[in-house]
């Protein structure tokens, strides 16, 4: 037993000296293990990518070959017609415009509100703090589609149906609970002495928050922004309730409305779906370097 340990170590030592393997891989990994790990990861990547590739394939198919059992990734006679048809659709630009306005504004507001709220939750021991946090968590348990009817009635009363304002308020509220939790965790991981020294230097609350805390909390904020954006960019059910006229349709609503004539427009639909998914993916990729640190900083400490 002991000799095998020593043996292993001397082997490691050998590799470390060679400095080829150890600089690329973990010391203890044998060649076979590395091959197996790569095999599993590549299989996982294939499974993760395949459905996305499938949309690309369908969107590239010529319109007479939409229903096909071919498994080719790039179809025969591949064409961009579907993309051109999608963009040429008169309503398409309206959907994009609506989606952009709604998503960007609701992300900005949701972020501002939840970052402020989370800061208060993190730094102040007010009465009912714990209850407040639990209540926020509790809202996640009410099935969201079930508040549709009351929300619709409320929005009608406030005359906010079919307006940007109405849907933006809903998206802000959707994003707040999770983001407050996320950001509170992140703020908790930032040492209080940072602001305290700022106060000694005569800073007030707003400057200390704005100039000192926010820059440090950037990874957390990036992730909160990501979730807020994703939540509103791809939301369909609430939009369906609040927005009614076609001029107000968002991309998801437009997509679903296209789905009515599935058989004829399958290709155009796939192209539009891809155009919808790509901004979300880009935002995700941009934020991905923050994803790990931003999401878990708080929970590790707390």
């Amino acid at each position, binding site marked *: 037993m002991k000799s095998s340990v020593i043996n292993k170590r001397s082997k490691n030592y050998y590799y470390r000296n060679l400095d080829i393997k150890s600089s690329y891989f973990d010391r203890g990994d044998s060649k076979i293990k590395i091959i197996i790990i790569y095999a*599993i990861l590549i299989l996982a990547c294939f499974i993760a990518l395949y459905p996305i590739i499938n949309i690309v394939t369908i969107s590239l198919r010529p319109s007479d070959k939409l229903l096909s059992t071919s498994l080719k990734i790039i179809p025969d006679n591949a064409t961009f017609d579907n993309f051109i048809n999608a963009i040429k659709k008169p309503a398409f630009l309206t959907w994009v415009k609506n989606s952009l306005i709604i998503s960007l504004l609701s992300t900005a507001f949701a972020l501002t509100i939840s970052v402020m709220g989370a800061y208060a939750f993190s730094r102040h021991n007010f009465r009912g703090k714990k209850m407040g946090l639990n209540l926020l968590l509790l809202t996640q348990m009410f099935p969201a589609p079930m508040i549709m009817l009351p929300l619709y009635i409320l929005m009608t009363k406030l005359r906010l149906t079919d307006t940007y304002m109405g849907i933006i308020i809903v998206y802000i509220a959707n994003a707040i609970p999770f983001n407050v939790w996320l950001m509170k965790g992140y703020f908790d991981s930032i040492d209080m002495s940072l602001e305290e020294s700022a106060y000694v230097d005569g800073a007030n609350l707003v400057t200390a928050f704005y100039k000192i805390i926010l820059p440090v909390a950037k990874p957390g904020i990036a992730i909160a922004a990501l979730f807020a954006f994703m939540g509103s960019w791809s939301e369909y059910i609430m939009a369906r309730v609040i927005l009614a006229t076609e001029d107000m349709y968002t991309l998801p609503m437009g997509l679903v409305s296209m789905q009515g004539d599935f058989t004829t427009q399958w290709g155009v639909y796939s192209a539009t779906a891809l155009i919808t998914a790509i901004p979300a993916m880009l935002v995700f990729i941009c934020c991905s370097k923050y994803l790990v640190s931003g999401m878990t900083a708080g929970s590790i400490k707390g």
Partner: protein
Amino acid sequence: MRVKKGYYNNLQIKSAKGSFNREKNKILLFLIPTVLVMLLVVVYPLIFEIVLSFKRVVLQNLRSWNWPNVGFDNYNRIFQEPIFYKVLGNTLLWTVINVACHVFFGMGLALLLNRKLPGKGIIRLILILPWAMPEYIVALTWKGLFNEEFGTINVVLKAIFGSDAMLPWLSDPKYVFIASIIANVWLGIPFIMMVCLGGLQSIDKEYYEAAEVDGASNWQKLKNITLPLLKPVMTPAIILGSVWTFNKVNIIYIMAGNNVSDDAHILVTYAMKKAFNNYNYSYSAAFAVIIFLILALFSSSFIKAQKMNQVR
């Protein structure tokens, strides 16, 4: 001289502390927007919905605002219907299988990625892409993949096992349910994987080095170091993941569509179907309240059990 300096410093600290406390109380103002939005858009509808569940509201009397009180009638009706228990069972099955698969695969991939590997960054990026896809597009895409005639899955099954192996993914409720689970597992792995990676990166390497010195096997290291230290990170993620899965509408609603019997539904999608197709608003309100109570009970007991473990 020295004394004076100390005195001076003290004074400065005191005034700084005073202003700190004053500033600290101002922080409460930061809460106002959160509270306002939550009251308007979440709390008010919640209360409204609870009130609704004790009334009788259908399409015919919706606009009259004159809704008769019916007490617990809606609840009684739900509990008397056998379909409720069927759907409840489905929901539990759906949640347990999904979350178990998310944790198993997500954690496994995170463990594989948490080592030195060339190309790790790219692999990680590809693996989180499912998360970046809007949910209803995911559902529709998988519906396409499961298409009984043209979908990749049946085409592959046919190519390997012959035409007998083609499965009725979208018409038989049992297979609709399985297909939905596959789609949702695909969708949910990246979240757990990323949380897990974050947790793994925060574990001090020294623990492993010490274990290595003691001759611990890889399995022992995983069981006695990695898993316990991941727990504080994974617990909230698992609770949230369970709640989200329990309440996930898009996947089953789109996969099952309207042409599959209720057997493939879970509580939320069933309640949605009742509200949209049968226009029985108070009935589905009662359903929503029941879902809410189940989840609240589950989460609070889960958190409590977790806390007890920590005390021990």
